[in-house]
Every structure is written in structure tokens, then in C-alpha cells.
């Protein structure tokens, strides 16, 4: 470990003590953070090139220059914490767990894409990561809602809701602040202030540009968002604060080198000199690199070697992604509903498409969201079916018993079996929560087998509709 003191990196609002200025840095952590930042810079470079080749379409917002924010924060967020951000989401998506390949494949709209080519640059998700969001500001109340879920479940997690300086003026952000404070939600509101909302400089859009004070009744923390160690330290502080006292606002002061999106050259509203100057004096990667060298955590040669490795790795992953397969055409009408009730999805002309789900193979592997979030209690038709089956089993058991009484021991075993079967069915039909993990398809009727079976299949997708008693939807 090396120790160093951070300077001019924090400003506090309504806080007695800010984050500690003295921080420790291990070689391992340093390399991890450096690698992540360089990976992201490289990835965005490739995205930029691909966009210009027109393989990436529509919107594409690059994170160049802001890498320290995501990287530093992720160092101190724990497995149980959630993140939701706006449309500039590539770095967050990657650091929350989507592999580079899946991400690049999504950008170019291929089958291997983490949203199977249905989301694109702004709509990528994974466990505990609730996406980029294309509606400026909408992610903030959503994030407060995720924080509400953390509090509701008492799972000790916090939610980080990120937005830019442009979104900071959205009314719904203040609505979310208000409720988060009222209900003491474990939510960290993070304003990534890159000083331009599209082409509008902060002071042309905001009557008050100290975004960390915008919470008014909520404490705030201004952080030099181009210093990864400052971000890391501040995040630790914010997580602790949010868990103990409720919501807090952070302002990460940073800068974007590129235009707002790919169609913006980024120089009509600011000078080239301004961009060059920030690049030279405040670049998060260069400054951290120098810090590592000063602290003798790594040598110049090692860094050079690392740079080459990273470049090779990112290039290789993206290359693999780019030669991937197209999304099959039938996925156009997949996953509209997790429990589809539409008899047919309408095509351009006529009701032709049979809805189906690819949810269970999302991200190329079994979905990460908890299966019990989908259907862990007998629901609707499944409940009716389970009930019908239970009644049937009961009747059968009764019959068997009668037979037994009449005909001696012959049928004893069979009667026993059906009685056993009937029992868990009864349970499944009732108002149970914990043990009611019957197959959501109602296929197994919540029988003894279903209890043991993995309840991993989310809702009813394929598979035959349950037999008559409940008038079941077909797919």
C-alpha cells in the first residue's frame, strides 16, 4: 500500500466532515482501475470508428474523459448495490458486468448483444444494473424506486442514480429528491457534471450551477470527478452516509472530450483550446498514470506492456463481436411480455406472429434476475389449475382409501402415493409465499416434483397451455 493525500478534491454541503483526504492505494487496485479506464477509452474509440463506418446506428454517446467517475465509484460499490444511469452508459454497463463483446455486439445490433439487438447503445442491462435510459432525467425516480426496494427488503444495498448537468434541471429529479429524503431511501444521487448539456454550457442552463447544493435539504458533496482516487474515496463516504442517514447528492465535476453524441463535432459551443487544455491538464487516465509512477506502484515499462495488453484484449473482443450473427428475424416479436396473453402479435399486415420468450437465455446464459421475481407464487391460471389438481388428487385419494377399506391391503401403496402428491398441491393453491414455488406454467400442477425442480423458468412462455379447467391463454 502507498499512502497519499488528496488536495482540492472535495467540497461539502450540510456535512460536518467530508471524506478522508488521506487515502491508501495498493498496486493491485491501481492496476485494476487503470486497466478499466484504459479499456473504456479504447472501447469508445472503437465505437467511434464503427459509428463512422455506419455499423453502429442511431444514438451513441461516448464516455471519453469521464472514465474516472464510473471506475472510481465501482471500486467502492458492493455486490448488493444497484446502479441506474442515463444514455451515456457504456462504461457503467461494462463495469457492472456486461462483457465487452456483448456490449459491442449490442452497439452494432447483433444476436450476441446483451439486449439481443433490441436496446442499442442506451439500453443495456444486467444484474443490479437497470440500464441506461434514453429519457433525460427519467432514470432518477427509477433509481429512487430501486433504492426503495433495497430499503423494503432490508438487504443493505444502496442505489446510485446518475444524471448529467443537463438533466439536473428536470422537475422529476426534485420530485425524487423529495421522496427519497422523506422516506430516507438509501439512494446516492450523482450528477456527472461534464459542463455541457448537449451544447448548452451549465451556466446557460442552470440558474445555480452548484449541483451538489441542489438537494437543499439533503447534504451534498462536490468531487473532482477526474481524479479516480477522489471519486473512490467520496463513494465510500456516500455509501456509508446513505446507509446510515439516507439520500445524499454528489456532483462529479468532469469533462467530455467528444461531442454530445456522434452527430455533434463538439466545437461549435466551445473552443478546441478548451478541450485540449482539459486533456493536457486534467485527463483522468494520464493523471492517474503519473500518480502510479510517482508512488512507485508500477514502472513505466510495466505500464507500456499493460497498455499493449489492454489494447489487444479490447480490440480482440470487439473484433469477435463485429463478426457475430444477426439477430434472428423472429426475435422481432419476442419478449414483448414476460407473460404474454396476446393470441397473436400483429405483423405489418395481419395478426401473424406467435409471441415467444428468449428471456431465459438472455446474455447467452440463464438470466441473472432472480427467478422468484417473476413468478414464485402460483399465479392466475396456475393457481386455479393447482387447486383443481389438488381437489382431483384428494378425490382420488379418497377413492383409493375406500377401495382399501373394501379390498384389503392391495392398493395400499398407491393410495399412499397419491395422498402425498395431494399435499404440496394444497399448499401451492393456498396463500403461501415461501414454499409456493410451483412451476409457473402450472404444467406440473405444483406437485411434489415441482417443489424440487428449479423454478428458474420465468413465467409461462412456450409449452402447452394448461388443460381445460382454467380458460388459459394460449401463449
Amino acid at each position, binding site marked *: 500500500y502507498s499512502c497519499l493525500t488528496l488536495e482540492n478534491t472535495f467540497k461539502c454541503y450540510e456535512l460536518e466532515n467530508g471524506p478522508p483526504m488521506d487515502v491508501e492505494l495498493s498496486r493491485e487496485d491501481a492496476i485494476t482501475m487503470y486497466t478499466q479506464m484504459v479499456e473504456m477509452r479504447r472501447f469508445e474509440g472503437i465505437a467511434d470508428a464503427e459509428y463512422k463506418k455506419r455499423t453502429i446506428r442511431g444514438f451513441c454517446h461516448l464516455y471519453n474523459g469521464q472514465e474516472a467517475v464510473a471506475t472510481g465509484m465501482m471500486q467502492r460499490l458492493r455486490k448488493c448495490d444497484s446502479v441506474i444511469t442515463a444514455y451515456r452508459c457504456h462504461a457503467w454497463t461494462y463495469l457492472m458486468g456486461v462483457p465487452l463483446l456483448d456490449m459491442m455486439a449490442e452497439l452494432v445490433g447483433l444476436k450476441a448483444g446483451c439486449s439481443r439487438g433490441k*436496446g442499442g447503445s442506451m*439500453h443495456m442491462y444486467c444484474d443490479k444494473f437497470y440500464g441506461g435510459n434514453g429519457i433525460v432525467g427519467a432514470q432518477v425516480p427509477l433509481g429512487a*424506486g430501486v433504492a426503495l426496494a433495497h430499503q423494503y427488503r432490508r438487504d443493505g444495498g444502496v442505489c446510485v442514480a446518475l444524471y448529467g448537468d443537463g438533466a439536473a434541471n428536470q422537475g422529476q429529479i426534485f420530485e425524487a429528491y*423529495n421522496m427519497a429524503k422523506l422516506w430516507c431511501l438509501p439512494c446516492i444521487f450523482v450528477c456527472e457534471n461534464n459542463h455541457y448539456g448537449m451544447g448548452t454550457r451549465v451556466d446557460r442552463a442552470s440558474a445555480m450551477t452548484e449541483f451538489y447544493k441542489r438537494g437543499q435539504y439533503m447534504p451534498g458533496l462536490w468531487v473532482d470527478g477526474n481524479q479516480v482516487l477522489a471519486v473512490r474515496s467520496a463513494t465510500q463516504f456516500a455509501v456509508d452516509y446513505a446507509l446510515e442517514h439516507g439520500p445524499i447528492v454528489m456532483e462529479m465535476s468532469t469533462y467530455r472530450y467528444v461531442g454530445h453524441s456522434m452527430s455533434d463535432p463538439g466545437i461549435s459551443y466551445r473552443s478546441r483550446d478548451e478541450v485540449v487544455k482539459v486533456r493536457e491538464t486534467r485527463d483522468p487516465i494520464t493523471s492517474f498514470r503519473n500518480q502510479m509512477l510517482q508512488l512507485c506502484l508500477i514502472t513505466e515499462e510495466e505500464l507500456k506492456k499493460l497498455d499493449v495488453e489492454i489494447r489487444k484484449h479490447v480490440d480482440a473482443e470487439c473484433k469477435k463481436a463485429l463478426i457475430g450473427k444477426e439477430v434472428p428475424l423472429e426475435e422481432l416479436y419476442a*419478449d414483448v*411480455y414476460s407473460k404474454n396473453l396476446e393470441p397473436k402479435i400483429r405483423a405489418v399486415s395481419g395478426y401473424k406472429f406467435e409471441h415467444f420468450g428468449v428471456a431465459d437465455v438472455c446474455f447467452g446464459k440463464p438470466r441473472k434476475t432472480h427467478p422468484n421475481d417473476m413468478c414464485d407464487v402460483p399465479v392466475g391460471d396456475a393457481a386455479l389449475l393447482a387447486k383443481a389438481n389438488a381437489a382431483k388428487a384428494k378425490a382420488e385419494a379418497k377413492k383409493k382409501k375406500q377401495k382399501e377399506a373394501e379390498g384389503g391391503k392391495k392398493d395400499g401403496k398407491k393410495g399412499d402415493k397419491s395422498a402425498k402428491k395431494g399435499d404440496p398441491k394444497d399448499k401451492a*393453491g393456498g396463500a403461501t409465499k415461501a414454499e409456493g414455488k410451483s412451476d409457473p406454467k402450472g404444467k406440473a400442477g405444483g406437485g411434489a416434483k415441482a417443489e424440487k425442480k428449479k423454478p428458474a423458468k*420465468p413465467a409461462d412462455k412456450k409449452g402447452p397451455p394448461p388443460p381445460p379447467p382454467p380458460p388459459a391463454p394460449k401463449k
Partner: protein
Amino acid sequence: KQMTVRDALNSALDEELARDDRVFLLGEEVAQYDGAYKVSRGLWKKYGDKRIIDTPITEMGFAGIATGAAMAGLRPVCEFMTFNFAMQAIDHIINSAAKTFYMSAGAVNVPIVFRGPNGAASGVAAQHSQCFAAWYAHCPGLKVISPYDTEDARGLLKAAIRDPDPVVFLENELMYGTAFPVDDTITDKDFVVPIGKAKIMRPGKDITIVAHSKAVETSLLAAAELAKKGIEAEVINLRSIRPLDTATIFASVKKTHHLITVENGWPQHGVGAEICARIMEDQTFFELDAPVWRCAGVDVPMPYAKTLEAHALPRVPDLVEAALKVLGGKAGKAAAAAK
């Protein structure tokens, strides 16, 4: 045994709250005030602050928070004092709730119910009298329900809460106090009505009347009037606006060969318009003996004055007139046969 629609909703909420501890209710005045329309009466006392949450008057914010909680695996019931105010939050209903499952290729589902009174109340003028059925039913990813009576309200609300997708549940304030007979099946705690299935409220062979929500009442009264003229009208209560149970409508039309649609919302691009289009595109079109006729709210913002308001919505005589028009000469024959 009788039960009001209000009590049906209340008991459905109560039972679902008891059944699944991920279910919670939030909205304006739902807790300590007992609900602006008393739908959540007694629930706060029973379940406390964690499960029954009063929000400030900030629809966009709390609809967003509810949607976020649903994304994270809870099952919120988000009450709007009326759906007129939900327009402030419509971005979260459509962009955040309805589209996320598709955009994430099935990674994030949003099990949420947006509910509250919809459509015209009485004497509250234009901003507070509007039917949103067609608005929401336009959007893939949503399920849209519009219950009529106690059975619908109870069974469909329970089904909606148990559903893993976002559901828009359009109640009607004017129906809250109306009591309907109930039996043990309906009061059973596991009673659910399948989403996406219509109900034939009154069988008939001469003409089909399709309606939803309070318009079902008007349709039933009209059917009774028609019966006096010897015309047997079949009344279909849609229950779900999306998915739309075209199978039931088509089957009925194949029997009656005549159809009128009734809704309290505006006509253009409305529920009736959609039903007409669906029939046009189906073989059922050839079963029709006369063009389909729509009865809908007058194409104006809702006025305040009592008589104007009453004439802004389809009334029984309007329906009878429309049915007779559609039946044409057959109406006369039926009348003659009745005599």
C-alpha cells in the same frame, strides 16, 4: 349477498397484500386519509407505513419510483387519484414500464399495477373527465384492464397484481358505490379473472353490443329496452382492452350478424374503432349483415353543466336507436314476431 365495487377493490388489495409481501400500495392519500375514494380504507391500519405509502402530489416522481421498485423485483400497486393526473406520469408508464422488458430482451420485467378511477365522473368538467382506455391500449408491453362490476373488479385486480407485466387498471369512480350480488366463488381469496377474456353479460341472438366499464351498464339497460321490442341483444363486457378478446366478439357476431360498440371515451382511434378494424380484417366481416356502428362519447371536451354532460356520453336511447338502425328491416320483423 352484495358487495360494492369499492369493497371488491379493497378486499382484492387486502388479500394480495396478505398473500405476497412484495406487494405494496403507494399513491396520494392512500394511507392515513384512507384513500381519496376510500378504496384503500383500513389498509394502512392493517399493514402500516411500509406497505401502504402516502406520496406527495408528484405523479411523475412517484410513478417513477414505483416503476423502479418493480424493476428491482417488488410488486407495487401505484394508485393515481384519477387517471387524469397520470398524464403527468405517462412517460414512466410507457417509456419506463411498458418498454423495458422488450428493450432488455427479457432481462428486466416490470410487475406493476397502475390503477385509479378513469373516465367521466359527474360534474367535474373537461380536465377531470376523460377515458384513457384507447391511449394505453395503443401501447405494446402494457396490459389494459377496465372492469365493470364487483366480480370484474375483484378478480381482475387480483390477476393484475399477480401478473409479471405492467398493467393499467382503469376503474370508474361512478361505479365505486354500486353493489352487485356475489357468491362464494367471487369472495374466495384465490378468485381471479383471467386477463384478456371478455364476458358475455347477457346472451342474445339478434345483435351484439360490445362495451367496457360503465358503458356495460348502459348497454345492459339498452338491451332490456330492445327486449321489449322483441330484439335479443347480446351484451359483451370486454373486461380487458389489451389484449382484446376478439375471439368472443367474433363468435358473437357470427351468431348475431350485427354489432354496435359502446364506450364513454372519444370516438376517433378509440376502442370501438379498433373493434371495427379487427372485424374488417377478419373473416367475420363476411358474417355482418349491416355495417358496424359506434356509440362513443361526443367528440368534445367534457362540459360542466349537468344536461350538457349527460348528452356528452352515450345514453340508453342512443344505443337503442343505433341498434334499430343497424338492424334495419329486421328490427321490424322481430317486433312483429314478438307480437
